[in-house]
Protein backbone atom coordinates (compact mmCIF):
# COMPACT_ATOMS: atom_id res chain seq x y z
CA UNK A 1 0.00 0.00 0.00
CA UNK A 2 1.29 3.41 -0.97
CA UNK A 3 0.33 6.53 0.89
CA UNK A 4 1.38 10.10 0.36
CA UNK A 5 0.58 12.70 2.97
CA UNK A 6 0.53 16.37 2.02
CA UNK A 7 3.27 15.77 -0.49
CA UNK A 8 4.70 18.98 -1.90
CA UNK A 9 7.60 19.97 -4.11
CA UNK A 10 8.97 23.43 -4.74
CA UNK A 11 11.90 23.47 -7.16
CA UNK A 12 14.94 25.65 -6.39
CA UNK A 13 13.73 28.01 -9.12
CA UNK A 14 10.72 28.75 -6.93
CA UNK A 15 8.21 26.83 -9.05
CA UNK A 16 5.74 25.04 -6.83
CA UNK A 17 5.12 21.87 -8.83
CA UNK A 18 3.15 19.98 -6.23
CA UNK A 19 1.10 21.09 -3.23
CA UNK A 20 -0.45 19.01 -0.46
CA UNK A 21 -1.17 15.85 -2.41
CA UNK A 22 -2.54 13.07 -0.17
CA UNK A 23 -3.38 9.80 -1.86
CA UNK A 24 -3.67 6.13 -0.85
CA UNK A 25 -3.22 3.39 -3.42
CA UNK A 26 -3.79 -0.20 -2.47
CA UNK A 27 -4.65 -3.69 -3.62
CA UNK A 28 -4.42 -4.33 -7.33
CA UNK A 29 -5.84 -0.98 -8.34
CA UNK A 30 -4.95 0.60 -11.65
CA UNK A 31 -4.81 4.31 -10.95
CA UNK A 32 -4.43 6.82 -13.73
CA UNK A 33 -3.20 10.29 -12.94
CA UNK A 34 -4.32 12.84 -15.50
CA UNK A 35 -3.85 16.56 -15.84
CA UNK A 36 -2.51 19.20 -18.22
CA UNK A 37 1.21 19.49 -18.99
CA UNK A 38 3.05 21.01 -16.07
CA UNK A 39 0.38 19.98 -13.57
CA UNK A 40 2.96 18.06 -11.55
CA UNK A 41 2.13 14.48 -12.59
CA UNK A 42 5.71 13.54 -13.28
CA UNK A 43 6.95 15.32 -10.18
CA UNK A 44 4.45 13.39 -8.07
CA UNK A 45 5.53 10.00 -9.40
CA UNK A 46 9.21 10.86 -9.06
CA UNK A 47 8.73 12.08 -5.50
CA UNK A 48 7.49 8.61 -4.55
CA UNK A 49 10.85 6.90 -5.19
CA UNK A 50 12.69 10.16 -4.54
CA UNK A 51 14.19 10.55 -7.97
CA UNK A 52 12.90 14.01 -7.15
CA UNK A 53 13.27 14.99 -3.50
CA UNK A 54 9.93 16.19 -2.09
CA UNK A 55 10.15 19.40 -0.06
CA UNK A 56 7.16 18.73 2.22
CA UNK A 57 5.00 15.82 3.28
CA UNK A 58 5.60 12.12 3.62
CA UNK A 59 5.58 9.01 1.43
CA UNK A 60 4.81 5.65 3.03
CA UNK A 61 5.10 2.27 1.38
CA UNK A 62 3.56 -0.53 3.44
CA UNK A 63 3.80 1.75 6.48
CA UNK A 64 7.50 2.41 5.98
CA UNK A 65 8.32 6.08 5.57
CA UNK A 66 10.47 6.65 2.48
CA UNK A 67 10.96 10.36 2.95
CA UNK A 68 13.91 10.88 5.27
CA UNK A 69 15.54 7.49 4.63
CA UNK A 70 19.34 7.48 4.38
CA UNK A 71 21.09 6.53 1.16
CA UNK A 72 21.41 2.79 1.90
CA UNK A 73 17.89 2.43 3.23
CA UNK A 74 16.49 4.35 0.28
CA UNK A 75 18.24 1.90 -2.05
CA UNK A 76 16.59 -0.99 -0.25
CA UNK A 77 13.22 0.71 -0.39
CA UNK A 78 13.57 1.43 -4.11
CA UNK A 79 13.81 -2.30 -4.80
CA UNK A 80 10.12 -2.45 -3.92
CA UNK A 81 9.10 0.22 -6.42
CA UNK A 82 9.06 -0.62 -10.12
CA UNK A 83 9.17 2.27 -12.55
CA UNK A 84 8.31 2.55 -16.23
CA UNK A 85 9.45 5.66 -18.12
CA UNK A 86 8.19 7.68 -21.06
CA UNK A 87 11.46 7.43 -22.99
CA UNK A 88 11.88 3.80 -21.84
CA UNK A 89 15.21 4.75 -20.19
CA UNK A 90 16.85 1.50 -21.21
CA UNK A 91 20.55 1.07 -21.74
CA UNK A 92 20.53 0.99 -25.52
CA UNK A 93 23.80 -0.83 -26.03
CA UNK A 94 22.94 -3.71 -23.72
CA UNK A 95 20.87 -6.77 -24.56
CA UNK A 96 17.22 -7.19 -23.68
CA UNK A 97 18.15 -9.71 -20.98
CA UNK A 98 20.70 -7.40 -19.39
CA UNK A 99 18.14 -4.61 -19.30
CA UNK A 100 15.50 -6.81 -17.69
CA UNK A 101 17.99 -8.19 -15.16
CA UNK A 102 19.00 -4.66 -14.18
CA UNK A 103 15.76 -4.77 -12.20
CA UNK A 104 17.48 -7.24 -9.88
CA UNK A 105 20.61 -5.14 -9.28
CA UNK A 106 19.42 -4.23 -5.81
CA UNK A 107 19.80 -7.87 -4.80
CA UNK A 108 23.25 -8.73 -6.16
CA UNK A 109 26.80 -7.67 -5.29
CA UNK A 110 28.79 -5.13 -7.27
CA UNK A 111 31.07 -7.88 -8.50
CA UNK A 112 28.15 -9.98 -9.71
CA UNK A 113 26.73 -6.93 -11.50
CA UNK A 114 30.04 -6.36 -13.24
CA UNK A 115 30.14 -9.96 -14.44
CA UNK A 116 26.39 -10.06 -15.22
CA UNK A 117 26.25 -13.03 -12.89
CA UNK A 118 22.65 -13.14 -11.63
CA UNK A 119 21.18 -16.00 -9.58
CA UNK A 120 19.36 -18.64 -11.67
CA UNK A 121 15.98 -17.71 -10.09
CA UNK A 122 16.38 -14.17 -11.39
CA UNK A 123 17.23 -15.38 -14.87
CA UNK A 124 14.28 -17.75 -14.83
CA UNK A 125 11.97 -14.98 -13.70
CA UNK A 126 13.32 -12.72 -16.44
CA UNK A 127 12.60 -15.38 -19.07
CA UNK A 128 9.04 -15.81 -17.76
CA UNK A 129 8.46 -12.06 -17.92
CA UNK A 130 9.83 -11.82 -21.45
CA UNK A 131 7.24 -14.45 -22.36
CA UNK A 132 4.53 -12.51 -20.58
CA UNK A 133 5.31 -9.23 -22.37
CA UNK A 134 5.60 -11.01 -25.71
CA UNK A 135 9.35 -10.80 -26.25
CA UNK A 136 10.20 -14.48 -26.07
CA UNK A 137 13.43 -15.39 -27.91
CA UNK A 138 14.50 -11.75 -27.99
CA UNK A 139 16.75 -11.95 -24.93
CA UNK A 140 20.01 -11.57 -26.87
CA UNK A 141 18.88 -8.72 -29.10
CA UNK A 142 20.38 -5.35 -28.39
CA UNK A 143 17.78 -2.86 -27.25
CA UNK A 144 18.66 -0.37 -29.98
CA UNK A 145 17.39 -2.92 -32.52
CA UNK A 146 13.87 -2.87 -31.04
CA UNK A 147 10.81 -0.78 -31.91
CA UNK A 148 9.32 1.69 -29.44
CA UNK A 149 6.58 -0.72 -28.34
CA UNK A 150 9.07 -3.51 -27.81
CA UNK A 151 11.35 -1.22 -25.82
CA UNK A 152 8.50 -0.24 -23.54
CA UNK A 153 7.77 -3.93 -22.98
CA UNK A 154 11.38 -4.39 -21.91
CA UNK A 155 10.89 -1.42 -19.57
CA UNK A 156 7.81 -3.05 -18.07
CA UNK A 157 9.58 -6.39 -17.66
CA UNK A 158 12.44 -4.60 -15.89
CA UNK A 159 9.99 -2.99 -13.47
CA UNK A 160 8.08 -6.22 -12.79
CA UNK A 161 11.16 -8.42 -12.33
CA UNK A 162 11.83 -6.37 -9.21
CA UNK A 163 8.75 -8.05 -7.66
CA UNK A 164 7.70 -4.59 -6.57
CA UNK A 165 5.00 -3.61 -4.12
CA UNK A 166 3.87 -0.93 -6.56
CA UNK A 167 4.52 -0.13 -10.21
CA UNK A 168 4.84 3.51 -11.22
CA UNK A 169 4.53 4.42 -14.88
CA UNK A 170 5.53 7.93 -15.96
CA UNK A 171 3.76 8.67 -19.27
CA UNK A 172 4.41 5.13 -20.57
CA UNK A 173 2.45 5.70 -23.78
CA UNK A 174 3.49 9.21 -24.78
CA UNK A 175 6.20 8.04 -27.19
CA UNK A 176 4.03 5.33 -28.76
CA UNK A 177 1.39 5.16 -31.49
CA UNK A 178 -2.26 4.69 -30.44
CA UNK A 179 -2.35 0.96 -31.19
CA UNK A 180 0.85 0.22 -29.25
CA UNK A 181 -0.33 2.53 -26.46
CA UNK A 182 -3.39 0.32 -25.96
CA UNK A 183 -1.22 -2.80 -25.88
CA UNK A 184 0.99 -1.26 -23.23
CA UNK A 185 -2.01 -0.17 -21.13
CA UNK A 186 -3.46 -3.66 -21.40
CA UNK A 187 -0.17 -5.14 -20.30
CA UNK A 188 0.02 -2.81 -17.30
CA UNK A 189 -3.54 -3.60 -16.17
CA UNK A 190 -2.87 -7.29 -16.72
CA UNK A 191 0.20 -7.06 -14.49
CA UNK A 192 -1.80 -5.44 -11.69
CA UNK A 193 -4.11 -8.45 -11.67
CA UNK A 194 -1.53 -11.22 -12.19
CA UNK A 195 1.05 -9.83 -9.78
CA UNK A 196 -1.47 -8.46 -7.33
CA UNK A 197 0.20 -5.04 -7.19
CA UNK A 198 -1.22 -1.57 -7.60
CA UNK A 199 -0.17 0.34 -10.72
CA UNK A 200 -0.02 4.13 -10.83
CA UNK A 201 0.07 5.53 -14.36
CA UNK A 202 0.69 9.10 -15.36
CA UNK A 203 -1.03 9.70 -18.61
CA UNK A 204 -2.29 12.57 -20.67
CA UNK A 205 -4.61 10.61 -22.97
CA UNK A 206 -7.88 10.86 -21.04
CA UNK A 207 -9.66 8.23 -23.13
CA UNK A 208 -6.99 5.64 -22.33
CA UNK A 209 -7.23 6.54 -18.65
CA UNK A 210 -11.01 6.13 -18.66
CA UNK A 211 -10.80 2.89 -20.58
CA UNK A 212 -8.18 1.10 -18.51
CA UNK A 213 -8.02 2.64 -15.05
CA UNK A 214 -10.15 1.68 -12.05
CA UNK A 215 -9.58 5.01 -10.45
CA UNK A 216 -8.57 8.43 -11.67
CA UNK A 217 -6.58 11.16 -9.98
CA UNK A 218 -6.77 14.63 -11.49
CA UNK A 219 -4.02 17.18 -10.94
CA UNK A 220 -4.28 20.85 -11.76
CA UNK A 221 -1.55 23.32 -10.95
CA UNK A 222 0.11 20.89 -8.55
CA UNK A 223 -3.05 20.23 -6.55
CA UNK A 224 -5.23 17.15 -6.45
CA UNK A 225 -8.61 18.26 -7.79
CA UNK A 226 -10.19 14.90 -8.57
CA UNK A 227 -10.01 11.47 -6.98
CA UNK A 228 -12.64 8.94 -7.87
CA UNK A 229 -13.62 5.90 -9.92
CA UNK A 230 -13.14 6.25 -13.66
CA UNK A 231 -16.93 6.13 -14.11
CA UNK A 232 -17.31 9.33 -12.09
CA UNK A 233 -15.12 11.38 -14.37
CA UNK A 234 -17.65 13.79 -15.90
CA UNK A 235 -17.26 16.62 -18.37
CA UNK A 236 -17.36 18.98 -15.39
CA UNK A 237 -14.55 17.21 -13.61
CA UNK A 238 -12.50 17.33 -16.81
CA UNK A 239 -13.12 21.07 -16.87
CA UNK A 240 -11.82 21.29 -13.31
CA UNK A 241 -8.74 19.23 -14.11
CA UNK A 242 -7.79 20.71 -17.46
CA UNK A 243 -9.06 24.28 -17.29
CA UNK A 244 -9.09 24.92 -13.56
CA UNK A 245 -12.84 25.66 -13.53
CA UNK A 246 -14.52 25.94 -10.15
CA UNK A 247 -16.13 22.59 -9.29
CA UNK A 248 -19.94 22.68 -9.13
CA UNK A 249 -21.39 21.90 -5.65
CA UNK A 250 -22.59 18.40 -6.55
CA UNK A 251 -19.54 17.17 -8.43
CA UNK A 252 -17.22 14.52 -7.09
CA UNK A 253 -14.18 16.19 -5.66
CA UNK A 254 -11.38 15.09 -3.40
CA UNK A 255 -12.71 13.09 -0.46
CA UNK A 256 -15.98 12.81 -2.31
CA UNK A 257 -17.33 9.79 -0.45
CA UNK A 258 -16.34 6.67 -2.39
CA UNK A 259 -15.34 3.80 -0.10
CA UNK A 260 -11.60 3.92 -0.78
CA UNK A 261 -11.46 7.47 0.44
CA UNK A 262 -13.34 6.78 3.66
CA UNK A 263 -10.89 3.99 4.33
CA UNK A 264 -8.03 6.31 3.58
CA UNK A 265 -9.32 8.87 6.02
CA UNK A 266 -9.70 6.20 8.72
CA UNK A 267 -6.24 4.83 8.22
CA UNK A 268 -4.75 8.27 8.27
CA UNK A 269 -6.57 9.08 11.53
CA UNK A 270 -5.16 5.88 13.05
CA UNK A 271 -1.65 6.78 12.18
CA UNK A 272 -1.72 10.34 13.37
CA UNK A 273 -0.55 9.65 16.97
CA UNK A 274 2.56 7.84 15.75
CA UNK A 275 5.68 9.94 16.19
CA UNK A 276 7.18 11.04 12.91
CA UNK A 277 10.44 9.25 12.29
CA UNK A 278 13.40 11.15 10.99
Amino acid at each position, binding site marked *: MLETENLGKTYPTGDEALRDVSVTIDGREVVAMIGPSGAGKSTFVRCINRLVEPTTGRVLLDDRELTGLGEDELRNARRDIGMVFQEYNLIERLTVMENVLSGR*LGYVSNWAALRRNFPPEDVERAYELLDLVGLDDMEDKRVDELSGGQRQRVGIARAVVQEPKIVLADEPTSSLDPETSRDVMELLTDIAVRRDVPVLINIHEVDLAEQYADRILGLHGGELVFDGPAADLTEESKGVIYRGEEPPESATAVGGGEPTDVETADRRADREPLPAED
Partner: protein
Amino acid sequence: MAAGSSTASDRRTWRRPTAFRNRYTKWAVYGAVLALVVWSVASLRITPGRFLSGLGYGYELIGSMLPPETGSESVARLVDRMIETIAMAMVATVAGIVISLPVAFGAAGNLSPRPTYYLSRGIISVSRAIDGLIVAIIAVIALGFGPLAGIVAISFKTIGFFSKLFAEDLEDIDMGGVEAVEATGATRFQSLVYGVVPQVVPRFAGLAVYRWDINIRSSTIVGIVGAGGLGVLLQRSYSRYEYDFVATILIAVIAVVLVAEFVSAVVRRRVQ
Protein backbone atom coordinates in the same frame (compact mmCIF):
# COMPACT_ATOMS: atom_id res chain seq x y z
CA MET B 1 14.86 62.47 -63.69
CA ALA B 2 14.44 64.20 -60.35
CA ALA B 3 11.95 61.61 -59.24
CA GLY B 4 14.29 58.76 -60.31
CA SER B 5 17.29 60.08 -58.37
CA SER B 6 15.23 60.63 -55.24
CA THR B 7 14.01 56.98 -55.24
CA ALA B 8 17.63 55.87 -55.70
CA SER B 9 18.77 57.81 -52.64
CA ASP B 10 15.80 56.43 -50.66
CA ARG B 11 16.87 52.92 -51.39
CA ARG B 12 18.16 51.22 -48.28
CA THR B 13 21.71 49.90 -48.28
CA TRP B 14 23.03 46.92 -46.41
CA ARG B 15 26.46 45.89 -45.25
CA ARG B 16 27.46 42.70 -43.57
CA PRO B 17 27.90 43.53 -39.85
CA THR B 18 31.51 43.06 -38.68
CA ALA B 19 32.50 40.81 -35.81
CA PHE B 20 34.17 43.88 -34.31
CA ARG B 21 32.24 46.78 -32.88
CA ASN B 22 32.56 48.88 -36.06
CA ARG B 23 34.72 49.27 -39.16
CA TYR B 24 37.28 51.57 -37.48
CA THR B 25 37.88 49.00 -34.74
CA LYS B 26 38.23 46.33 -37.38
CA TRP B 27 40.97 48.16 -39.29
CA ALA B 28 42.69 49.12 -36.03
CA VAL B 29 42.87 45.45 -34.99
CA TYR B 30 44.19 44.36 -38.40
CA GLY B 31 46.81 47.15 -38.23
CA ALA B 32 47.88 46.14 -34.72
CA VAL B 33 48.33 42.48 -35.74
CA LEU B 34 50.42 43.48 -38.76
CA ALA B 35 52.56 45.80 -36.61
CA LEU B 36 53.14 42.99 -34.13
CA VAL B 37 54.38 40.63 -36.85
CA VAL B 38 56.70 43.31 -38.30
CA TRP B 39 58.07 44.11 -34.85
CA SER B 40 58.68 40.40 -34.14
CA VAL B 41 60.63 39.91 -37.36
CA ALA B 42 62.67 43.05 -36.69
CA SER B 43 63.46 42.19 -33.09
CA LEU B 44 64.60 38.70 -34.06
CA ARG B 45 66.98 40.33 -36.59
CA ILE B 46 65.80 38.20 -39.47
CA THR B 47 67.20 39.86 -42.57
CA PRO B 48 66.81 38.76 -46.18
CA GLY B 49 70.59 38.18 -46.33
CA ARG B 50 70.56 35.82 -43.43
CA PHE B 51 67.58 34.00 -44.84
CA LEU B 52 69.38 33.44 -48.14
CA SER B 53 72.60 32.18 -46.55
CA GLY B 54 70.43 29.89 -44.38
CA LEU B 55 68.95 28.41 -47.54
CA GLY B 56 72.49 27.68 -48.74
CA TYR B 57 73.39 25.85 -45.53
CA GLY B 58 70.15 23.90 -45.76
CA TYR B 59 71.04 22.75 -49.24
CA GLU B 60 74.46 21.59 -48.07
CA LEU B 61 72.88 19.74 -45.13
CA ILE B 62 70.50 17.85 -47.37
CA GLY B 63 73.45 16.96 -49.58
CA SER B 64 75.35 15.48 -46.64
CA MET B 65 72.29 13.45 -45.64
CA LEU B 66 72.26 11.63 -48.96
CA PRO B 67 72.47 8.75 -49.35
CA PRO B 68 71.10 7.67 -45.94
CA GLU B 69 73.35 5.37 -43.92
CA THR B 70 72.35 1.70 -44.33
CA GLY B 71 75.24 -0.16 -42.70
CA SER B 72 74.05 -3.31 -40.95
CA GLU B 73 75.40 -2.24 -37.54
CA SER B 74 73.61 1.10 -37.72
CA VAL B 75 70.38 -0.50 -38.86
CA ALA B 76 70.58 -2.97 -35.94
CA ARG B 77 70.94 -0.05 -33.49
CA LEU B 78 68.05 1.67 -35.19
CA VAL B 79 65.79 -1.37 -34.95
CA ASP B 80 66.61 -1.72 -31.24
CA ARG B 81 65.60 1.88 -30.63
CA MET B 82 62.48 1.54 -32.73
CA ILE B 83 61.33 -1.39 -30.61
CA GLU B 84 62.12 0.66 -27.50
CA THR B 85 60.08 3.55 -28.89
CA ILE B 86 57.03 1.42 -29.55
CA ALA B 87 57.32 -0.34 -26.18
CA MET B 88 57.55 3.03 -24.40
CA ALA B 89 54.42 4.22 -26.16
CA MET B 90 52.51 1.05 -25.24
CA VAL B 91 53.46 1.13 -21.56
CA ALA B 92 52.83 4.87 -21.29
CA THR B 93 49.45 4.60 -22.98
CA VAL B 94 48.26 1.83 -20.66
CA ALA B 95 49.64 3.49 -17.52
CA GLY B 96 48.29 6.91 -18.53
CA ILE B 97 44.81 5.58 -19.28
CA VAL B 98 44.63 3.60 -16.03
CA ILE B 99 45.40 6.79 -14.11
CA SER B 100 43.06 8.80 -16.36
CA LEU B 101 39.96 6.72 -15.64
CA PRO B 102 39.25 7.95 -12.11
CA VAL B 103 40.23 11.47 -13.14
CA ALA B 104 37.82 11.36 -16.11
CA PHE B 105 34.90 10.12 -14.00
CA GLY B 106 35.77 12.78 -11.42
CA ALA B 107 35.81 15.46 -14.10
CA ALA B 108 32.38 14.53 -15.52
CA GLY B 109 30.02 17.15 -14.10
CA ASN B 110 26.97 14.89 -14.33
CA LEU B 111 28.49 12.06 -12.29
CA SER B 112 30.69 13.56 -9.62
CA PRO B 113 30.20 15.93 -6.70
CA ARG B 114 31.55 19.48 -6.99
CA PRO B 115 34.78 19.14 -4.96
CA THR B 116 35.89 16.03 -6.88
CA TYR B 117 34.97 17.77 -10.11
CA TYR B 118 37.20 20.78 -9.41
CA LEU B 119 40.08 18.60 -8.19
CA SER B 120 39.94 16.45 -11.33
CA ARG B 121 39.68 19.47 -13.63
CA GLY B 122 42.71 20.90 -11.82
CA ILE B 123 44.76 17.75 -12.47
CA ILE B 124 43.78 17.92 -16.14
CA SER B 125 44.76 21.58 -16.45
CA VAL B 126 48.17 21.00 -14.87
CA SER B 127 48.87 18.05 -17.15
CA ARG B 128 47.84 20.01 -20.22
CA ALA B 129 49.66 23.20 -19.30
CA ILE B 130 53.21 21.79 -19.40
CA ASP B 131 54.68 20.74 -22.71
CA GLY B 132 55.77 17.11 -23.09
CA LEU B 133 59.46 17.95 -23.60
CA ILE B 134 59.59 19.99 -20.41
CA VAL B 135 57.99 17.10 -18.51
CA ALA B 136 60.56 14.79 -20.12
CA ILE B 137 63.46 17.01 -18.99
CA ILE B 138 62.13 16.98 -15.43
CA ALA B 139 61.64 13.20 -15.58
CA VAL B 140 65.22 12.71 -16.82
CA ILE B 141 66.56 14.83 -13.97
CA ALA B 142 64.49 12.89 -11.46
CA LEU B 143 64.88 9.35 -12.81
CA GLY B 144 68.04 9.44 -14.91
CA PHE B 145 68.48 8.80 -18.61
CA GLY B 146 66.52 6.01 -20.28
CA PRO B 147 63.08 4.90 -21.29
CA LEU B 148 61.60 5.04 -17.77
CA ALA B 149 61.80 8.84 -17.82
CA GLY B 150 60.12 8.84 -21.22
CA ILE B 151 57.34 6.57 -20.02
CA VAL B 152 56.68 8.82 -17.02
CA ALA B 153 56.62 11.94 -19.18
CA ILE B 154 54.30 10.48 -21.81
CA SER B 155 51.97 8.96 -19.21
CA PHE B 156 51.74 12.34 -17.54
CA LYS B 157 50.71 14.00 -20.79
CA THR B 158 48.24 11.18 -21.50
CA ILE B 159 46.35 11.96 -18.28
CA GLY B 160 45.44 15.49 -19.33
CA PHE B 161 44.44 14.58 -22.86
CA PHE B 162 42.56 11.39 -22.17
CA SER B 163 40.76 12.53 -19.03
CA LYS B 164 39.55 15.72 -20.64
CA LEU B 165 38.15 14.12 -23.77
CA PHE B 166 36.75 11.09 -21.98
CA ALA B 167 35.09 13.30 -19.35
CA GLU B 168 33.36 15.15 -22.19
CA ASP B 169 32.03 11.85 -23.54
CA LEU B 170 30.82 10.91 -20.08
CA GLU B 171 28.99 14.21 -19.84
CA ASP B 172 27.24 13.50 -23.14
CA ILE B 173 25.66 10.18 -22.12
CA ASP B 174 21.92 9.68 -21.82
CA MET B 175 21.17 9.94 -18.10
CA GLY B 176 17.71 8.36 -18.51
CA GLY B 177 19.07 4.84 -18.42
CA VAL B 178 21.25 5.66 -15.43
CA GLU B 179 18.25 7.14 -13.63
CA ALA B 180 16.23 3.99 -14.33
CA VAL B 181 18.98 1.76 -12.99
CA GLU B 182 19.21 3.89 -9.85
CA ALA B 183 15.43 3.67 -9.46
CA THR B 184 15.66 -0.13 -9.18
CA GLY B 185 17.73 0.22 -6.01
CA ALA B 186 21.17 -0.28 -7.55
CA THR B 187 24.31 1.00 -5.83
CA ARG B 188 26.32 3.86 -7.31
CA PHE B 189 28.96 1.46 -8.55
CA GLN B 190 26.32 -0.73 -10.16
CA SER B 191 24.70 2.18 -11.91
CA LEU B 192 28.14 3.12 -13.27
CA VAL B 193 28.98 -0.34 -14.64
CA TYR B 194 25.45 -0.97 -15.84
CA GLY B 195 24.19 2.45 -16.88
CA VAL B 196 27.24 4.50 -17.79
CA VAL B 197 30.03 2.18 -18.97
CA PRO B 198 28.10 0.46 -21.81
CA GLN B 199 27.35 3.87 -23.29
CA VAL B 200 31.00 4.98 -23.45
CA VAL B 201 32.88 1.78 -24.33
CA PRO B 202 33.18 2.57 -28.08
CA ARG B 203 34.38 6.11 -27.40
CA PHE B 204 36.85 4.76 -24.85
CA ALA B 205 38.35 2.37 -27.38
CA GLY B 206 38.57 5.07 -30.04
CA LEU B 207 40.23 7.56 -27.70
CA ALA B 208 42.67 4.96 -26.38
CA VAL B 209 43.90 4.11 -29.87
CA TYR B 210 44.06 7.76 -30.83
CA ARG B 211 46.19 8.54 -27.79
CA TRP B 212 48.39 5.52 -28.50
CA ASP B 213 49.08 6.97 -31.94
CA ILE B 214 49.98 10.37 -30.41
CA ASN B 215 52.20 8.63 -27.84
CA ILE B 216 54.16 6.85 -30.57
CA ARG B 217 54.94 10.27 -32.02
CA SER B 218 55.88 11.66 -28.60
CA SER B 219 58.15 8.73 -27.80
CA THR B 220 60.18 9.36 -30.95
CA ILE B 221 60.95 12.88 -29.72
CA VAL B 222 61.47 12.63 -25.94
CA GLY B 223 64.81 10.89 -26.58
CA ILE B 224 66.19 14.29 -27.65
CA VAL B 225 66.48 15.12 -23.95
CA GLY B 226 67.66 11.60 -23.04
CA ALA B 227 64.37 9.94 -22.20
CA GLY B 228 64.82 6.87 -24.41
CA GLY B 229 63.65 5.83 -27.85
CA LEU B 230 64.65 6.88 -31.37
CA GLY B 231 65.24 10.46 -30.24
CA VAL B 232 68.35 9.42 -28.30
CA LEU B 233 69.89 8.06 -31.46
CA LEU B 234 68.86 11.15 -33.40
CA GLN B 235 70.40 13.51 -30.88
CA ARG B 236 73.66 11.53 -30.74
CA SER B 237 74.12 11.25 -34.45
CA TYR B 238 73.59 14.90 -35.31
CA SER B 239 75.89 16.01 -32.52
CA ARG B 240 78.52 13.80 -34.21
CA TYR B 241 77.66 15.29 -37.63
CA GLU B 242 76.55 11.85 -38.93
CA TYR B 243 73.93 13.43 -41.12
CA ASP B 244 73.49 10.37 -43.31
CA PHE B 245 72.44 8.39 -40.24
CA VAL B 246 70.15 11.27 -39.16
CA ALA B 247 68.36 10.81 -42.48
CA THR B 248 67.89 7.08 -41.85
CA ILE B 249 66.47 7.83 -38.39
CA LEU B 250 64.08 10.44 -39.77
CA ILE B 251 62.83 7.93 -42.34
CA ALA B 252 62.33 5.39 -39.55
CA VAL B 253 60.40 7.96 -37.47
CA ILE B 254 58.15 8.80 -40.39
CA ALA B 255 57.52 5.11 -41.10
CA VAL B 256 56.63 4.30 -37.48
CA VAL B 257 54.32 7.30 -37.17
CA LEU B 258 52.56 6.59 -40.45
CA VAL B 259 51.94 2.96 -39.51
CA ALA B 260 50.61 4.02 -36.08
CA GLU B 261 48.32 6.61 -37.68
CA PHE B 262 47.02 4.05 -40.13
CA VAL B 263 46.29 1.46 -37.43
CA SER B 264 44.64 4.10 -35.29
CA ALA B 265 42.44 5.32 -38.14
CA VAL B 266 41.32 1.80 -39.03
CA VAL B 267 40.51 0.88 -35.42
CA ARG B 268 38.65 4.10 -34.77
CA ARG B 269 36.54 3.70 -37.89
CA ARG B 270 35.59 0.20 -36.78
CA VAL B 271 34.53 1.01 -33.24
CA GLN B 272 32.56 4.17 -34.00
